[in-house]
């Protein structure tokens, strides 16, 4: 999808903002925190990536989160679309109305503890791995329609294994919506700029990217 934009031309200069706040508007902070405190399996990315490309490019970062979180909460049965739309209408009809405040210090303490901990993705501490640092590898030409961690710009290219990070769960979906089962070695793999971008590569530059073992074949 259009989210897979590494190496794509046409997005213009990188625009920076001086003294940027963490959240530009209060609702952004609420959406952020709301997402962090109601984790859903699979996270937000598949729903964000399933947005119409024009909508994806026209939505701000937290608008995408809000969209995906809403989709996820409805799918998981936390809220129904009907009650959500009814509630939106209430707020629309009553400008200045704020959500009712409910405090629960026990929940606050629990969430603090949870958020201060490490969130290790499920993984094996060790196992077999096929590649060693220095090995030449080629990225397989995999073109999944669903969520994947293998960007287009790297497919088919030759690289060199830099190091093994450990064993991580697969995140790719095939078919879309169905996460592939499995835990695999994940490597950092180095690709020379000239390999990725040909004559248009900048001098003396390279990309390191994390590759699940099934993305790779010996070269």
């Amino acid at each position, binding site marked *: 999808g259009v989210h897979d*934009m*590494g190496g794509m031309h046409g*997005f213009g200069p990188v625009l920076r903002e001086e003294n940027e706040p963490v959240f530009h508007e209060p609702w952004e902070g609420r959406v952020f925190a*709301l997402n962090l*405190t109601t984790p859903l399996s699979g996270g937000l990315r598949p729903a964000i990536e399933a947005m119409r490309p024009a909508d994806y490019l026209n939505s701000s970062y937290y608008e995408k989160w809000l969209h995906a979180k809403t989709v996820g909460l409805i799918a998981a049965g936390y*809220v129904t679309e009907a009650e959500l739309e009814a509630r939106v209408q209430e707020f629309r009809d009553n400008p200045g109305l704020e959500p009712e405040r409910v405090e629960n210090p026990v*929940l606050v303490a629990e969430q603090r503890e949870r958020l201060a901990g490490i969130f*290790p993705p499920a993984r094996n501490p060790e196992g077999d791995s096929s590649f060693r640092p220095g090995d030449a590898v080629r990225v397989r030409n995999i073109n999944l329609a669903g969520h994947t961690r293998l960007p287009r710009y790297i497919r088919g290219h030759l690289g060199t294994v830099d190091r093994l990070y450990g064993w991580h769960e697969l995140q790719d979906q095939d078919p879309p919506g169905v996460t592939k089962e499995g835990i695999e070695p994940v490597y950092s793999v180095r690709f020379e700029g000239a390999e990725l*971008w040909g004559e248009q590569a900048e001098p003396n530059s390279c*990309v390191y990217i994390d590759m699940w073992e099934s993305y790779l074949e010996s070269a």
Partner: protein
Amino acid sequence: MSGHHDDGHTHEQNEAELRTKALESLLVEKGIISTDVIDDVVRAYEQDIGPMNGAKVVARAWTDPAYRERLLKDGTTAIAELGFQGAQGAEIVVLENTPDTHNMVVCTLCSCYPWPVLGLPPAWYKSEAYRSRAVIEPRAVLSEFGLELEEAVEVRVWDSNSDVRYMVLPERPEGTEGMSEDELAEFVTRDAMIGVAKIASPAATV
């Protein structure tokens, strides 16, 4: 549902704001979250979890060679020594900038970022321009940030596509000899820890 905002302002009710209110209101009503949980998380990321954390890590690495070694070997554990861990920090790899090698970090597919040490990413890091261009023309991007690197310096771009998160350990600037860890931390910028800037020598700005 209750509680009118009574600060006297007329709020332009944009659609995202309305929908966020509706979601929060429903989740609170159902007891799934409470208002103060949301307040607390917002406050944490606005006040406690930000690049000042990463700056402390960098300053420690600059002044403590053994820590530096641990940090480069196992970033996650060394960073946790200073009390920084949590969401988006399950595995943090620290990349050492040197006179010969410049590392910079991007997430082309999304906007992954090492929250425990840098907080939430700036808008430019999440921009389509940065995400698309960092891997194909890193020097051009760095140049827009005011950083011109000689060809002899290898530019390494790290695309954060797995659960591993990257943080750059910038070079310690000249003119900081004898400074304390706390003093040094003041000099460390977010952009240097993303790898789109160097840290200026304090002498240079006098």
